[in-house]
């Protein structure tokens, strides 16, 4: 169609691609048992934590890097060519913001993440508590005191290991054991930091909690883990955001997120994933191999995943819910956008074990340029999960004739009272829809944005407001003009 417009937008820069010049303490590249020990020592971890890491590492050594099964193509990752720890030099244990390296503050300021508690996002009612993770470590967790008044624990994972060892011991690895998969094992061995959150019985978390991940150093991998525990009848909404500098090399990000929802608890987890996707020729970008899983441990629990995936060169991610408690609910809302040479293989698993459990899957894939976008999902209704219900819908939108859109849904039903429905469609933006808009004086760009936003609306509506605004902007940047 309009080539000028197309080019302009394809060439649009990744505006978070800057590098912060900050002194960091970085491990030499390579991975062996000594690195794991050194990492643990650096973080001053108790013996049990080191044991956990070593067990995971030894298990990882016995595993083979997964090949072929996902619809992804990328060169083999050299795990010895990655540094497993990098942290800004100034000590992270800070009481007040004044002690934080001003460079860091500036970085997060630039990313639109305020680490100063009194600052409110314009036009937004509530504050957001942020745990900011810079390379391997958490630099600052805001609103910790305010939250602790309610009994809510929100801190970096490292702090939690020191301060709440019983909780960590009890819950870590409960949903994603280190034996789960290759990247989960790797993460369990070398994870550097992350966030921990515990909402006590009956508490409704008064603000959105959020983790912001930033990769800065060159040649490093980022391995963090997030653990969210919602005790009986509690509620929390959790946000995750991420960016990385523009580089020609591919950097590895292998994270774990675990969610445990007790009786009547509800956890809402939203992600806007915006790691550097590589340039227009497919050079550079983050390899994003993430294991996210939640468990509705007891009756009436609810876990909801919402994700907007626009970044990363490779995305390999299946946020899942194990519906163990009776009447528990799992939800997955996803928009995945791939442009240029990006590849995404993402979806969810809904494992129905408890009676009368329900799950909903809405997945919207958009592919442009030379990219490939796959939905891969599993809906499993186990024997005894009576009267369980699932509805899945995965739609794909193709822009351009060089890209691909794929769906790989697995549906396994072992209970006759289960009802499972699955629908999928693939199409392009309708010429008639575009014509309709243009005829009414809406130009091509705006028309596409309008149609794409309408297409994703079901998912975007599920995001907290601040995030929805960001997500809409991101969609526009990733896509406008890609129709050719």
């Amino acid at each position, binding site marked *: 169609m309009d080539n000028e417009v197309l080019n302009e937008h394809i060439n649009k820069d990744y505006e978070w691609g800057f590098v912060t010049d900050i002194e960091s303490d970085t491990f030499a590249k390579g991975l062996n048992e000594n690195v794991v020990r050194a990492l643990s020592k650096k973080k001053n971890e108790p013996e049990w934590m080191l044991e956990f890491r070593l067990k995971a590492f030894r298990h990882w050594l016995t595993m083979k890097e997964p090949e072929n099964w996902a619809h992804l193509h990328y060169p083999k990752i050299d795990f010895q060519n990655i540094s497993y720890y990098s942290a800004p030099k100034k000590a992270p244990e800070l009481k007040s913001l004044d002690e934080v390296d001003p460079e860091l503050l500036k970085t997060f300021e630039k990313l639109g993440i305020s680490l100063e508690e009194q600052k409110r996002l314009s036009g937004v009612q509530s504050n957001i508590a942020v745990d900011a993770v810079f390379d391997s470590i958490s630099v600052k967790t805001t609103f910790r005191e305010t939250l602790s008044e309610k009994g809510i624990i929100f801190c970096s994972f490292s702090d939690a290991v020191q301060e709440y060892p019983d909780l960590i011991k009890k819950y870590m690895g409960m949903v994603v054991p280190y034996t789960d998969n290759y990247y989960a094992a790797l993460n369990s061995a070398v994870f550097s930091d992350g966030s921990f959150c515990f909402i006590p019985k009956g508490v409704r978390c008064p603000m959105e909690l959020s983790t912001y991940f930033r990769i800065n150093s060159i040649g490093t991998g980022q391995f963090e883990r997030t653990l969210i525990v919602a005790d009986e009848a509690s509620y929390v909404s959790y946000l995750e955001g991420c960016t990385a500098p523009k580089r020609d090399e591919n950097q590895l990000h292998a994270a774990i997120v675990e969610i445990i929802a007790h009786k009547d608890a509800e956890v809402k987890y939203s992600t806007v994933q915006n790691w550097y996707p590589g340039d227009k020729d497919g050079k550079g970008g983050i390899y994003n191999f993430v294991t996210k899983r939640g468990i509705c441990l007891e009756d009436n629990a609810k876990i909801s995943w919402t994700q907007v995936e626009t970044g990363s060169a490779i995305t390999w991610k299946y946020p899942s819910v194990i519906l163990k408690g009776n009447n528990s609910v799992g939800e997955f809302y996803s928009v995945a956008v791939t442009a240029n040479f990006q590849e995404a293989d993402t979806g969810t698993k809904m494992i129905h074990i408890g009676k009368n459990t329900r799950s909903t899957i809405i997945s919207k894939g958009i592919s442009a340029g030379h990219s490939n976008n796959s939905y891969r999902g599993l809906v499993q209704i186990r*024997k005894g999960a009576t009267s369980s219900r699932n509805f899945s819908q995965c739609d794909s939108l193709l822009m351009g*004739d060089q890209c*691909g859109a794929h769906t790989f849904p*697995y549906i396994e039903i072992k209970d006759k009272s289960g009802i499972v429905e699955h629908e*999928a469609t693939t199409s392009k933006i309708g010429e008639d829809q575009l014509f309709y808009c243009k005829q009414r004086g809406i130009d091509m760009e705006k028309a596409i944005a309008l149609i794409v936003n309408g297409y994703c609306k079901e998912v975007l509506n599920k995001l907290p407001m601040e995030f929805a605004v960001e997500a809409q902007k991101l969609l526009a940047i990733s896509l406008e003009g890609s129709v050719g």
Partner: protein
Amino acid sequence: MIAEKSHTAQFLIEKISASASKVGFVNDAVLTKALLYLENKGIPSNKNEDYKYCNVEAVFKKEFKNPEQRFIGIESISPYRLPGTMCLVVVNGTFLERLSDVNKLEGVKITPFNELDQATKKKIGSIANVESDGLIALNTAFAGNGFHLKIEKGTQLQTPIQVIYVSGSDGESIVNPRNLIEVEEQGSATIIEQQVHIGEGKVFSNLLSEKFVAKQATLISYIFQNEGPLGYSVNTNQVVVAKEGHYDNTTITLGGQLVRNNHQVVLAGEYSQAHLNGLFSAKQQQVVDNHTLMDHQVPNCESNELYKGIVNDKSTGVFNGKIYVRKDAQKTNAYQSSKNILLSDDATINTKPQLEIYANDVKCSHGTSTGKIDENALFYLNARGIGKESGRKLLLASFAQEVIDKIEVESLREHITHLFESEI
């Protein structure tokens, strides 16, 4: 890494070789390739993504420990014969001219593999790649004397052709029936393929059929499977449809301990179309696995799939349908629907409807649903004086009707309707 050779495959090769007929329908190079592939890759197990829900290797290991290949002959096929058709008979993998109505119809040519000319022989195996599937390799290496069926150019065949594959043994046996079917330009034909099992021994029937539908030709194909608890079968059906060609297949599975159907259709010419329909009803420990691949290679083609399944007792039903739209296959229209009913808590339904799409100007969709019999519908019938059992039967029959109605050959449709109603 050194590939470990498959023990199961080696064992099978050893056992079958002795009794296999040496028809020589493929050249030695292909034969060697097939044997090598079989030895190295083996018989597909559940570790193979395409056989995730259908572990054929385990079936061989467990049920065919000692394939003695003690076949029993057959002298009459009259109980299976449908009236008003031309009949071809394949007994234990070998085409039997003696029992078949050979060359009775004008424009139809039937030739056993061992009498084929070189040019036609070359077509055998041109769709079925021996290095794509261990079972194709097994068939290629050990197939008996199959047949070549040709509908000559411009022949509009009114009489349906019935192909009966009878297999019978009094021990454990493995048979590899094979055929090549060609419908030449502007020809049209209806072919009914039926699998029958006789005798007291288990038979594993590894059937492979290659079908060519030429320009503006039409092939209506029906596959009817009702083998009983001693019949195990893998039915690989690979089809290429040329420009403006039309291929229809309806597969009805009512019996067989293990039934695996591999339907692969390549839409190779523009404006061609294909329709795949299927109905299965499984009971006891049966496993019925329907695998379809609709390969849209060129623009402006259309495909449709409708699969319905009913599983009872401890049976398992599988539907794996893949729509593959290649890069330049613009203006593709592809639709797929799979609906299943579970009648028992021990039954399992696994479905995997796949879309792999590399062209943007397409309309592709799939839908699948699985559930139990609608209680409200049943109540509606009960309230009107229709008993529980007959209400249930009525609902299941109406569920199946949509697929059964696709059968245009009246005698076959009635036969299947009757059998289906007595099954449920």
